[in-house]
């Protein structure tokens, strides 16, 4: 491939030359094979590497989850010893948060944010590569701890349990390095997204015509920039406490164990929204396309996302309702958390009304998007229950909480990721995934997920705390845990079907063509998979749905009888 400056002089169709004007300063041999991946600065290849690497870590995290569920399948089980069990849930949580959800959203953002805004790459392609390799380094360092002693202080790594006095060894240090390495990766990536989105939008694409997915990637990036430095500070203080004799978190040396919790959750709660907000973006792309309707209340959806992000940075201490804190603090964080319910409710209604009066096509991406809607709602309602601090006193750190955040992060984030993969796979590979297998996968996942996690609400209400490696034969705990374990394997089968689908469709899938779903956004304007330079011609954008406009213009010029309704004007 020639490294070339591509210059199009004018973009309106009347004045455009037949061939774009190209000036090549030099011509280099095209790099092929594995080096074309390792050395790439192409946002699409980096995006695919993010997605594939994140899925590999997802499988590792999933295996850890199944081991956890196997251990809890029966009372007094001895499959895993306590040390291994603690390592498994620590690695499961850390993997899913730092190595799966955040990076896979970065992968989608990398691949599709530039395409949706009509850019030819990210603003800083080399930084983009750096960002990916820092992420890989974080993952490798973290998983290397399996050979040296895995971390076992949970993904929250609360001090003083995580201090060297109580958890010596390499594991917690590996966790700290993971936080730093993936943190640098995400910070660099976030700055890159903000600059790209602010400066490289297609002509005519004002802020009010930016696809919702791009809005969510922008907000995701801003939140990363706000939250990550705080956990970096917290983790560095933990490192010096562990190795250099400081006492930031050690009360006997004048420190404060609650300081860790504040620093951690100041990052940790925005982190939840960092994980789910790009998912909101995917849903906001998929629902309009498969209901053949514009998004209902574009401005409200974008504004609600921004206000969720803003409020999300102000509610961290609702994770600390049981700590010795003044009632005024608890009240403040309860009210703040309640307020998030308002923009979240707005979004849910706007999504449903996007479907309302549409012509809904039940393709796999839509099924996952609707699955997301129905289950995220449950996570939202249980979230309000938990935000009520006197109730949280009963439910905090119980399986009710485990159920709640899995409804948000699996029913929510993971289902939106599945929706995004089924939606964008044709663009990334040029081939369609199997609809039949996709629908089987959806139903297995949907049913399996609900079997696994609905019953966990009851376990928590019945007094089962989280993070226990065994339990006695108390009340219904045995039966309910067994149900949950069976559900987790049904969920696993559903996921396996999608992995098989993705693998088989690489060779056997139907040829997708540039726009298999009749999409609304610019990524569907170009071939699948897109060429290295993305756009030979960047179209002028006149609405939130530029491709719908283009399709209608083509239809009207070629005099097609079934011209679609009025163009979406904004």
């Amino acid at each position, binding site marked *: 491939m020639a490294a070339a400056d591509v210059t199009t002089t004018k973009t309106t169709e009347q004045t455009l030359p037949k061939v774009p004007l190209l000036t090549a300063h030099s011509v280099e041999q095209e790099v092929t094979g594995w080096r074309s991946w390792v050395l790439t600065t192409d946002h699409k290849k980096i995006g695919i590497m993010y997605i594939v690497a994140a899925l590999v870590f997802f499988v590792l995290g999933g295996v850890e989850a199944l081991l956890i569920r196997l251990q809890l399948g029966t009372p007094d089980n001895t499959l895993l010893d306590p040390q291994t069990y603690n390592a498994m849930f620590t690695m499961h949580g850390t993997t899913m948060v730092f190595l799966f959800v955040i990076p896979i959203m970065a992968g989608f953002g990398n691949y599709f944010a530039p395409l949706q805004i009509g850019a030819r790459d990210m603003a800083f392609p080399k930084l983009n590569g750096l960002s990916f390799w820092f992420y890989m380094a974080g993952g490798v360092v973290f998983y290397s701890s399996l050979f040296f002693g895995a971390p076992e202080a949970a993904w929250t790594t609360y001090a003083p349990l995580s201090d060297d006095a109580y958890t010596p060894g390499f594991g917690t240090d590996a966790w700290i390095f993971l936080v730093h390495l993936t943190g640098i990766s995400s910070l660099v990536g976030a700055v890159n997204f903000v600059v790209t989105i602010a400066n490289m939008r297609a002509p005519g694409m004002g802020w009010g015509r930016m696809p919702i997915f791009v809005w969510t990637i922008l907000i995701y990036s801003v939140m990363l920039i706000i939250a990550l430095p705080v956990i970096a500070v917290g983790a560095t203080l933990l490192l010096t406490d562990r190795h250099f004799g400081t006492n930031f978190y050690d009360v006997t040396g004048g420190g404060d164990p609650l300081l860790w919790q504040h620093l951690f959750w100041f990052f940790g709660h925005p982190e939840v929204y960092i994980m789910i907000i790009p998912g909101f973006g995917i849903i906001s792309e998929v629902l309009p396309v498969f209901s053949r309707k514009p998004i209902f209340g574009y401005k409200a959806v974008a504004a609600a996302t921004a206000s969720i992000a803003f409020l999300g940075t102000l509610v961290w201490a609702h994770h600390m309702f049981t700590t010795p804190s003044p009632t005024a603090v608890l009240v403040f964080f309860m009210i703040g958390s*309640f307020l998030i319910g308002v923009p979240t409710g707005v979004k849910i209604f706007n999504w449903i009304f996007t479907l309302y*009066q549409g012509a*809904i096509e039940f393709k796999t991406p839509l099924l996952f998007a609707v699955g997301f809607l129905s289950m995220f*709602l449950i996570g939202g309602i249980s979230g309000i229950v938990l935000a009520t601090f*006197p109730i949280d006193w*009963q439910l*905090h750190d119980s399986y009710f909480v485990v159920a709640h955040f899995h409804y948000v992060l699996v029913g929510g984030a993971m289902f939106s990721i599945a929706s995004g993969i089924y939606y964008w796979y044709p663009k990334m590979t040029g081939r369609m995934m199997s609809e039949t297998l996709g629908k089987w996968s959806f139903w297995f996942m949907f049913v399996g997920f609900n079997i696994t996690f609905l019953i966990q609400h009851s376990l928590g209400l019945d007094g089962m705390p*989280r993070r226990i490696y065994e339990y006695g034969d108390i009340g219904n705990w045995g039966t309910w845990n067994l149900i949950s374990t069976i559900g987790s394997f049904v969920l696993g089968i559903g996921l396996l079907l999608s992995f098989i689908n993705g693998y088989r469709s690489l060779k056997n899938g139907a040829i997708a063509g540039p726009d298999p779903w009749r999409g609304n956004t610019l990524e569907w304007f170009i071939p699948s998979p897109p060429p290295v330079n993305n756009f030979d011609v960047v179209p002028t954008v006149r609405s939130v749905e530029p491709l719908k406009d283009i399709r209608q213009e083509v239809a009207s010029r070629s005099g097609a009888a079934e011209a679609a309704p009025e163009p979406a004007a904004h």
Partner: protein
Amino acid sequence: MPAQSSVGRLRQGLIPLAAAATATLLFAEPAAADWISPERGGSPNADAIHSLYMILLVVGLIVFFAVEGLLLYTLWKFKASRGHEAKQIHGNTKLEIGWTGGAAVLVVILAIVSFAKLGEIRNPPNSDPAGFRVAAIAEDPGTNQKLPPNKQGLHIKVTGYQYGWRYTYDDGNPATQDPYTYRDLYAPTQTTVLLSITSSDVIHSWWIPELGGKFDAVDGFNNWTWFKIPADKAGVSFRGQCAELCGRNHANMTASVKALTPSEFDAWLTAKRTELDQSAKDAAAQRAVVEAGKELK
């Protein structure tokens, strides 16, 4: 406008749906209380948390059935296979302001209900006259301590450690050693028991579900809570366990609270003190033997 009228019809349909959901829930509740709500029965604060939870659950289920119902109806009614055109609607400001306002009102109501219930959960009542004799409890400034109106109660200090609980029973006499136990906490019924919870190492969390919420045990802090066991629960043992990951044996850091009648508790406490005094005497006697340079028998 057709969009409006259809939305209006939908709104009418939702009211009976919500009513049906509430009815189902209310009638199902007594039978299913075990798996649908938090534990209660051992103390008024646990009961108050339970009733607050039930209010939120009812509201939550109404919202759940209304929204899921609307979603399912939409999916069924507007599937493309019915062969209609999608309406190109970009939004509806009135409707959007409506559900923003609706959500806000709901949140305000929930906040008000929570505040109304808070006193019952947070503030301990006085002990019953028939309860165990109680002493004035010293104020612990700078903490979340709440005292009964008469400032009296039985103070028990709870200390978490890897992996167990130690309870120190304040006998009101600074000159004598307070009795203590491990794992099993003995408590009189009809008596307001105030717990000051702390830790001697990592963070633990005290949780006996039937006696109310959990409170973290953090080294360097006193975290206060209370319970008051009703008379008919004498003889009952309430189980619980540490709720904050505290290391490898976190799962086995169990606790129980054994309810005794006030007179039984009095007898138990006296026996405990005698036992402690006796062992202190024995220890002193042995120390004397060792210090005299003789072999212990």
